[in-house]
């Protein structure tokens, strides 16, 4: 709407183009000076820059602007990104002209940045003043009101008051009469000028006066680099020119842009709108700039240290990239628009990620095949034991090793299984139902259940439960039998597609049940075999290799073949068959990924690498990322990393989520679905909202007073988990309630009308519909608590350089008396990412700043990843909801 408003027509008549151009250029100039003010304030550019350096800086800016405007202009000309608003075009051209002028000026005349900024302000003031006079004398068509308005008058009065005080206090000397006197005189003068005159002159005159005065003060050097002002004899600090000049420039630019925009739109209601909008736009730009610069600054400071010694094998890299490839593929599948040029541009954007990933994977395959390595050497600085800086060599390295670590395979494969199963949906009730397959399905389920009990018994009672040496005698044959049965099932799935006379599509449809039971049954049996293998310590071998991963590989190939066959058949099948076949190919891919994960699981549990030809799954793998994967190495040549903190944060988040999600979601269901909406629910809502805004440090105090005495009277990760869980709880509750409330009442009514009970409705209708909202809320909440520091300092003070990561999984012990499970590790304190950063600050001079920046970067990445995932999911589901 707003753009349409800006672009509806040239607001000023055609004869006065010169007036328009001049003001467009002035608006552009105020934007330039605003940005320069920001840059000089944060010292990205020094105010003292002059001569050749300054000229080069402006040439650099000019190149950037030419590039930006050039590409927008090109696409606008091609009608891909049409820019129709005359004012936007005008300001864009104005930017170009201004920067050419500035670059030329600095190249010809020896100027300092401060002087230049002052001159720029003076020029703005002159043009705005002239514009006001032109309107006053009727040279241009404008529609000024009788006065500039109370708001503008009050604002100018206030600004005048401040400027008067500043001028009186600094330039005339700090006597109190001059101070207050000049403040009041200037303030009232500005307000009177603004309110007393017709709008055109009443706007431009005070603006020109103010901006011009500021510009003259800076340009003449009355306030320059060496200038200081101490507000009072006992005040610690003082204002220096380095701060005051940029602040003056910022003030002048904002006021100037407002005045110029008002004049450009011909005053009156439209002028006020353009002026106000420009100010609000500049503010929005500033907020985004703050965000971007914080993230960019931390990244720039920390990235070198964070990636020291990063090495990855090409095959591992490919495994890491597979989920991304799948996601990019999914992105590229989304439908394109219709308009020709638009469609072309969108199609390009859609396929760009896939293409980039494809070339990356091809590069990795090339490394893998050719045996070459790829490296980017760099140096980084460490403060070993806080003594002095030491510069170390390092490199970002991709080797050609064809080995993958189990963890990578499990994570990437697990993601793929999840993704493809979501696409698979369900095949229940499709095709012909065969009694024998149904009975096989039942038997497989029963076998897995029975063996689960056996596994439990073995885990609790040791290898010979109740004196029967089950593991040693039965273990190996059982595992072998199970895995062979799994292989049989997966081969049967493939066979059902291959054998027969009718077309593959028909077979795929008819024998959907065999496919489903074959692949799921195969996966289930092989997982059971792998777990049994671990607890019974029985590994059947075929020659030098173990049986289980071998079978898993064969089954993976079979599954993949199923996927390929069904996908190929689906290309020419009818819609009904095609849909089933597509699901079946999803199932096949999920199965293939699942079988590979099982092979990796086997390696992880037995500790014996598994290799097939040159490719192998190793225990440690070829990914080495010292910052994340090593603990601190005392007195070492290399400092190691912050593994304990990473592990600590992961467990804290997991623990908090396990505590808070069931409680929060359960309470949300009760409050929204069961409870009568009345005083009690309102009270609970107010209480949870207050709990949400309670300072985190208060949660820490509570944890310290309530939890620690009850959890072994010492700082522990369990206390940290619960404290963060308390913080997460209100967030989960609030967002879940909102999500459940937003499920349309029609859903519940329709379900009730079918005679479904309330709980069944909640379980099968309301919760699934609310799930996306709940998950989004949980993810955002986890992002928030993952970065919390204050409560952790109170319940779990970490040390600066921990050398050992907490081992929660390994800490679980099964014991033969209640409570059966015991975990020593949960009662120990550990480092976490936020406390790691805090420890660097608290250590003062003995802390290592470079490590602090790297830790802060890792923390930022972790937290922002949660936020990004949450926000993307929300946008995605919201869009989906709107389309339906």
């Amino acid at each position, binding site marked *: 709407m*707003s753009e349409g408003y800006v672009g509806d027509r040239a607001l000023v008549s055609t004869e006065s183009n010169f007036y328009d151009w001049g003001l467009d250029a002035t608006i552009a100039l105020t934007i330039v000076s605003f940005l320069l003010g920001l840059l000089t304030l944060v010292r990205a550019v020094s105010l003292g820059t002059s001569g050749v350096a300054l000229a080069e800086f402006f040439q650099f800016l000019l190149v950037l602007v030419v590039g930006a405007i050039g590409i927008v202009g090109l696409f606008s000309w091609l009608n891909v990104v049409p820019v129709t608003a005359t004012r936007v075009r005008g300001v864009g051209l104005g930017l170009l002209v201004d920067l050419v002028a500035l670059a030329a000026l600095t190249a010809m005349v020896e100027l300092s940045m401060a002087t230049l900024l002052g001159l720029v302000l003076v020029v703005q003031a002159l043009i705005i003043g002239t514009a006001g006079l032109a309107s006053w004398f009727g040279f241009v068509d404008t529609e000024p009101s009788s006065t500039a308005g109370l*708001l503008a008058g009050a604002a100018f009065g206030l600004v005048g008051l401040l400027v008067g005080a500043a001028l009186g206090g600094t330039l005339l000397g700090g006597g109190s009469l001059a101070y207050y006197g000049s403040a009041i005189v200037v303030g009232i003068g500005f307000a009177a000028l603004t309110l007393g005159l017709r709008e055109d002159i009443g706007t431009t005159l005070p603006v020109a006066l103010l901006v011009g005065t500021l510009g003259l003060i800076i340009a003449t050097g009355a306030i320059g680099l060496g200038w200081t002002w101490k507000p*009072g004899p006992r*005040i*610690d*600090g003082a*204002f*220096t020119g*380095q701060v005051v000049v940029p602040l003056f420039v910022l003030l002048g630019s904002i006021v100037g842009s407002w005045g110029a925009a008002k004049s450009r739109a011909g005053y009156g*209601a439209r002028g*006020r*709108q353009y002026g106000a909008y420009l*100010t*609000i736009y500049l503010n*929005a730009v500033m*907020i985004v700039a703050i965000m971007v610069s*914080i993230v960019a*600054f931390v990244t720039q400071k920390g990235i070198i240290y964070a990636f020291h010694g990063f090495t990855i094998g090409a095959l591992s890299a490919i495994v890491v990239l597979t989920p991304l490839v799948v996601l990019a593929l999914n992105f590229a599948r989304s439908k394109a628009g219709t308009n020709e040029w638009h469609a072309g541009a969108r199609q390009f954007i859609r396929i760009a990620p896939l293409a980039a990933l494809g070339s990356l994977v091809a590069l990795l395959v090339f490394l893998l095949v050719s045996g070459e390595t790829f490296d980017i050497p760099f140096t980084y600085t460490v403060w070993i034991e806080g003594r002095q800086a030491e510069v170390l060599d390092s490199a970002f390295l991709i080797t050609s090793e064809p080995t993958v670590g189990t963890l990578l395979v499990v994570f990437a494969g697990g993601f793929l299984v999840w993704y493809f199963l979501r696409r698979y949906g369900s095949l229940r009730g499709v095709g012909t139902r065969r009694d024998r397959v149904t009975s096989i399905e039942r038997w497989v389920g029963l076998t897995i259940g029975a063996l689960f009990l056996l596994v439990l018994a073995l885990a609790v009672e040791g290898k010979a439960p109740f004196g029967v040496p089950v593991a040693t005698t039965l273990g190996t044959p059982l595992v072998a039998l199970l895995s062979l049965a799994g292989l049989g099932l997966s081969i049967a799935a493939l066979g059902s597609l291959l054998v027969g006379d009718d077309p593959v599509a028909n077979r795929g449809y008819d024998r959907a049940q065999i496919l489903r039971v074959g692949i799921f049954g195969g996966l289930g049996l092989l997982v059971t075999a792998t777990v049994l293998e671990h607890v019974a310590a029985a590994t059947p071998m075929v020659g030098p290799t173990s049986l289980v991963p071998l079978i898993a590989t064969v089954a993976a190939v079979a599954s993949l073949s199923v996927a390929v066959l069904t996908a190929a058949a689906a290309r020419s099948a009818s819609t009904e068959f095609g849909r089933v076949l597509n699901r079946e190919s999803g199932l096949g891919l999920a199965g293939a990924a699942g079988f590979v994960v099982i092979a990796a699981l086997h390696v992880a549990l037995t500790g014996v690498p598994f290799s097939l030809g040159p490719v192998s799954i190793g225990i440690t793998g070829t990914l080495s990322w010292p910052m994340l994967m090593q603990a601190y190495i005392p007195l070492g040549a290399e400092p190691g990393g912050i593994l304990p903190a990473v592990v600590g944060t992961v467990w804290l988040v997991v623990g908090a989520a396990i505590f808070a999600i*069931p409680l*929060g979601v*359960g*309470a949300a*269901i009760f409050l929204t679905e*069961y409870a009568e909406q009345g005083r009690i629910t309102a009270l*609970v809502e107010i*209480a*949870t*909202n*207050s*709990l*949400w805004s*309670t*300072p*985190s*440090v*208060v949660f*820490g*105090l509570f944890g310290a*007073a*309530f939890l620690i005495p009850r*959890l072994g009277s010492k700082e522990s990760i369990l206390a940290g988990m619960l404290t963060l869980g*308390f913080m997460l709880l*209100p967030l989960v509750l609030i967002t879940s309630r909102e999500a459940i409330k937003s499920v349309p009442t029609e859903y519940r009514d329709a379900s009730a009308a079918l005679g479904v*009970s309330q*709980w069944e409705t909640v379980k099968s209708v309301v919760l699934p519909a609310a799930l996306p909202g709940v998950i989004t809320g949980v993810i*955002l909440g986890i992002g*928030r608590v993952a*970065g919390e*520091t*204050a409560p952790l*300092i*109170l319940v779990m003070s970490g040390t600066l350089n921990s050398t050992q990561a907490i081992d929660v999984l390994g800490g679980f012990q099964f014991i033969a008396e*209640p*409570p059966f499970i015991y975990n020593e590790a949960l009662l120990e304190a550990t480092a976490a990412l936020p406390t790691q950063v*805090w420890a660097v*600050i608290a250590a003062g001079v003995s802390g290592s700043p470079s490590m602090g920046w790297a830790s*802060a970067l890792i*923390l*930022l990445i972790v937290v*922002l990843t949660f936020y990004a995932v949450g926000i993307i999911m929300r946008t995605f589901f919201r869009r989906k909801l709107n389309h339906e």
Partner: protein
Amino acid sequence: MDGIVSRLEAGLATLLALPLRFMSWLVGLPRRFAQFLTDLPHNIRAAALATKRVLFGADSALEEVLLGLALIVALGAIVFTFLLQSALTPYPLVVFIGIVALGWRSYQARTAKILTVFATAGTVLTLAFITYFLFEKAWTPLVDFGLELLAIPVNEQGQTRWFFWLDFILPQGEGQTGWDPHNNHPSLLAAAWATVVVTVIATLVAGPLGLLGALFIAEIASDGLREAIKPAVEILAGIPSIVYGFIGFAVLNSFMQDAFLDAGASFLIAGLVVGIMALPTVVSVAEDAITAVPKSMRDGAIAMGATEWQTMKSISVPAAISGISAAVILGIGRAIGETMAVAAIMAGGTTFARPLFDIFDQSVTLTSRIAISYGSASSTTLEVLFVAGVMLFIIVAGASIVAQYIERRLGHELEAEA
């Protein structure tokens, strides 16, 4: 403009009427208490019936009632053992899980409902526990020290420092900080004042910028731009406070030394950083308030020939002014509760700001006092820190309740006007 003025007048009138309403509430208190006592038996019976209905339904089988009772007993045992003898907690926990498993198999709907009731009770209990344990820990120092907790520090000459003529009420502290809990001088006044100064600076930053940002997102930005800038603001909210703190610690302090010839850490820089941190809260809550203004109101203005800016200035903002003030209040709450950034930036200072409004001085705030002193604290110090916690809790929870009250009223008003 007039809209805002009349709104503000109405708000002021409500505010001025508050003491009167409180007085009348106070006068009516004995009567209501008597009424409460007479109604008590009836209410208890009604509450018991309601509880029974919620837990067991109107007409349940004996088994379901037994199941509910068993679950309640098991849960009670968990809570009590955890409070009194935490080593025993696993036993009732196992029993509880067992009963849930049994119940889930046979009476799923009933079990699920009871579990959601328990989850609600657990959430409410958490709040109750937080309040109770904070106050319990803070009670001893509150009784022992009383107003000593807010003693006014002295200057170099040993005279009481000026603090808003409050030296008639507040006692004189020891030393220039008043903070020496080992020797029974637990004055939190310096920290409380530091919180005030930091919060004021932060509000000056976050308030105007947040309002303009909210206007931009709610009214001006096109759909595409809004989709880009809203996540940006949310991500700004997601940056952990310790990261801000580290930036302040590592970079901004030296910038201050250079640009303001200051000793380093200062209220100014802490306030600016906290203001940026509170900004997203202000933006998103104010944006919700402005978006909640019914479209019909805006359309009316547009139909009268007003420009968008006039509509915004005279219709949207005045209509949403209470929501916007709620946003600012929540932002203030966020600023007061901010811990790590302040602790990292102003770790060193403990003195009372000198002079009172010197924004180049430094001092720990209430929150950072807790965070910094907790590790090395003696038992007296610990208890005093809990007093600081209670102060924070009351202020921030109060701000939150006021903001919710305002938002609720805004919702009703807009419904009425729409």
